[in-house]
């Protein structure tokens, strides 16, 4: 099993550009999460989903959007990239109440 996969691994954006960070899991987990990790800090929750078609905001949702059309995929959309969105983004998935399994991360720089 691949677990949680994220693409791309690295990306550089110009201010105002948009992009989608992809996240896929093959463990049939209902719960999926997006976190961001700023330098020297812990992870902060952006959005989460408890199942296909259901999403909700986390601690830092501004500037992002998500969708969950399938159990496997949970893409994160940045519409107008800003320097403050320079960060490492982690996707995670879990069964209900189970351990969260994390992907390897996407390192995003906005210049």
């Amino acid at each position, binding site marked *: 099993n691949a677990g949680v996969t994220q693409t791309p691994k690295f990306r550089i954006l110009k201010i105002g550009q948009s992009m989608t960070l992809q996240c896929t899991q093959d463990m049939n987990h209902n719960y999926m999460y997006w976190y961001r990790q700023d330098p020297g800090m812990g*992870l*902060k929750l952006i959005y989460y989903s408890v199942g296909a078609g259901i999403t909700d905001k986390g601690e830092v949702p501004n500037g992002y959007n998500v969708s969950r059309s399938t159990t496997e995929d949970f893409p994160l959309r940045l519409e107008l990239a800003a320097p403050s969105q320079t960060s490492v983004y982690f996707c995670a998935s*879990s069964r209900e109440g189970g351990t*969260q399994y*994390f992907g*390897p991360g996407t390192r995003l720089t906005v210049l």
Partner: protein
Amino acid sequence: AQSVTQLDSHVSVSEGTPVLLRCNYSSSYSPSLFWYVQHPNKGLQLLLKYTSAATLVKGINGFEAEFKKSETSFHLTKPSAHMSDAAEYFCVVSRSGDSSYKLIFGSGTRLLVRP
């Protein structure tokens, strides 16, 4: 509200000596507590978790943590450090009964292991 405070941003030990990474938590409800490890340029891996069973929790790679409600602490220990233990460690809390099961992370402790 839940929060965790990791008391040391950096800890440096010699190989073969004990490791102590300190974590205090704040929670209005019965918490679930975790320690995750992040090796350089890697994702996060669960070391161990406490979910109101035994207060002494054993994890992978010889790590363990003790839940002390009276001290609101969940310190991570290992009897003998190995070079491969060098990494960033995160103390994490989740609120029991929170239907989203979202995790709240501490700011991390970077463990350096000297040869």
